[in-house]
């Protein structure tokens, strides 16, 4: 699959946007400005970016507790995301959801999810609606290596394959579910092998190579869109930060992290784009600056926005 230049640059920008967003959150969390849990996506940007770059606006995604990257990649608005994470009324969920529940149904983002394995069954539902209506919308379901052991995920894979639903299950194998390394949570080395249980394609891809992700997911999206059913794409990657901010990572070696930092998906892609003459040093810098400005505006928006009033608590329970 050849990727046009514009898309390449967009993907670079998206990865950069995610990195900057998450890095800011890291600071804000350390400064005690964010309540609750924050699960950062730093190091895994190529997965969400490559996967969502294959989608159309009307397509859907379901996300996870580590959702900011997915949301940004699907076009989420930084202002409303940041405001939500700050618990402000102007946030995506009016401050009711927070980091783990950000959604934008109009953008096809069917929610981050605080329940590991919670997204798969819901992804099927959106795919079923697409099939029912005969439109050709596709759903990308992001899930972690840990989530692949949860029964709901496995049921979702089975139903999607039995019904040939247009879902692409994108597994983010970052090596750990909190402190549990994949080698302790499952006997298979590749989660993609689990596709065999449902007779669907299972592909392993370098999750730090955004074009490899784009190509593998793109292939699967094409299959799904033309009625050939679901696929499972495993993206091998790594989270740089602790499971949540505050995690001291006693369960892993620093050198493991160092190895992966060397494989940072962003400079790697940037170099490639430079080598191919697609992105100049100046252009890259300009993109970074523009995103930083965008982010500053989002932060200002979030900071200046009002908190919800206690009285709003009773709203939005029922339609």
């Amino acid at each position, binding site marked *: 699959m050849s990727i046009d230049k514009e898309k390449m640059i967009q993907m670079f920008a998206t990865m950069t946007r995610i990195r900057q967003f998450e890095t800011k959150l890291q600071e804000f969390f350390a400064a005690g400005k964010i309540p609750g849990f924050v699960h950062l996506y730093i190091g895994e940007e190529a997965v969400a970016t490559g996967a969502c770059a294959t989608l159309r606006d009307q397509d*859907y995604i*379901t996300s996870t507790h580590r959702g900011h990257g997915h949301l940004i990649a699907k076009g989420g608005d930084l202002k409303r995301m940041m405001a939500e994470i700050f618990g402000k009324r102007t*946030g*995506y*969920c*009016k*401050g*009711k*959801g927070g980091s783990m*529940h950000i*959604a*934008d*149904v*109009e953008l096809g983002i*069917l*929610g981050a*999810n*605080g*329940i590991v394995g*919670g997204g*798969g*069954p*819901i*992804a*099927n*539902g*959106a*795919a*079923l*609606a*697409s099939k*029912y209506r005969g439109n050709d919308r596709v759903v990308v379901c992001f899930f972690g290596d840990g989530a692949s052991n949860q*029964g*709901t995920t496995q*049921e*979702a894979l*089975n*139903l999607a394959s*039995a019904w040939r639903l247009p879902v692409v299950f994108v597994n983010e194998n970052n090596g750990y579910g909190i402190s549990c390394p994949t080698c302790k949570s499952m006997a298979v080395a590749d989660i993609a092998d689990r596709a065999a249980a449902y007779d669907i394609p299972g592909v392993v891809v370098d999750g730090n190579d955004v074009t490899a992700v784009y190509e593998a997911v793109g292939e699967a999206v094409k299959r799904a869109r033309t009625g050939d059913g679901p696929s499972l794409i495993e993206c091998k990657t790594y989270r740089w930060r602790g499971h949540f901010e505050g995690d001291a990572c006693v369960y892993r070696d620093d050198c493991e992290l160092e190895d992966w930092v060397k494989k940072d998906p962003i400079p790697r892609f940037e170099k490639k784009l430079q080598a191919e003459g697609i992105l100049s040093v100046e252009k890259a810098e300009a993109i970074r600056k523009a995103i930083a400005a965008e982010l500053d505006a989002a932060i200002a928006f979030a900071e200046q926005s009002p908190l919800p009033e206690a009285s709003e608590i009773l*709203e*939005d*329970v*029922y*339609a």
Partner: protein
Amino acid sequence: MAMKTYLQALNDALRQEMERDPDVFILGEDVGQFGGCFGVTQGLFKQFGEARVKDTPITESAIIGAATGAAATGLRPVCEIMFVDFIGVCMDQLFNQAAKMRYMFGGKAKIPMVLRAPQGAGIGAAAQHSQSLEAWFLHMPGVKVAMPSTPEDAKGLLITAIRDDNPVIFLEHKMLYGIEGEVPDEAIAMPFGQAAIRREGRDVTIVATSKMAHTALEAAETLAADGISAEVIDPRTISPLDTQAIVDSVKKTHSLIVAHEAVKTGGVGAEIAAQVAEAAFDYLDAPIIRIGAPFTPVPFSVPLEQAFIPSAADIVKAARRLRG
């Protein structure tokens, strides 16, 4: 109007709503050609085809999730969980996903889905196929809960459930499927949150849900012979609950019995009793008595199962105690 069974009434509601609205569809285990374990979806597969009457694998979490995702993206799924007892394998998709999605998203989603499930003991199906679990659903913000006791209510409430923009848990009692009653031919939606006064009375209020509403009427008959005039109220939906109707009745009768088939401890009767003990305390002349199943799993053998299910005699005894 025509005489129909509760089961036919449900089937009517499904068929008419599916005819009216192409977004309504059914999914569940054996709901297709088989017609559902108890026969509620009989004939619908033939009429609407497999795109709209969807047999699923044995995969309750995926069923509720599929309904939730489809509802969030604009369809109106009606899913069947074959016995309410199976809710434990899929509770997360119901209570953390479907029920909370709208709220968590700040009001930016609608989840118009129905989860139908039969409840109740009486056929010797033992501990994992006979429970009444409505108390769990009552304690679940974001869902509504209907418990029809008559064929007319079965139809009217199911129509409302399907048209509602929220997840509705629709609890049928498996021992009621065969009862008959007048049912309107047209698709008439019956409002949620309006109790039915099944019998008017002066001396004691009996609030009774689902099949227990019939048991309460039986008890009222016996009590009438004793000169005790019982008012029987069937809430029809427990969430929303028509507290007003109950309180109004208690203001008249000054005493309350609440009866349900679920285990008494922690049951819906506790909520109703507590509401009345707060809102109508000054009108009460006597303790509030709850009738419910003993604190055990549902036993299999007939004499044990019969001992599990609260009886008209239990209600009669309670009423006499209140008067005595």
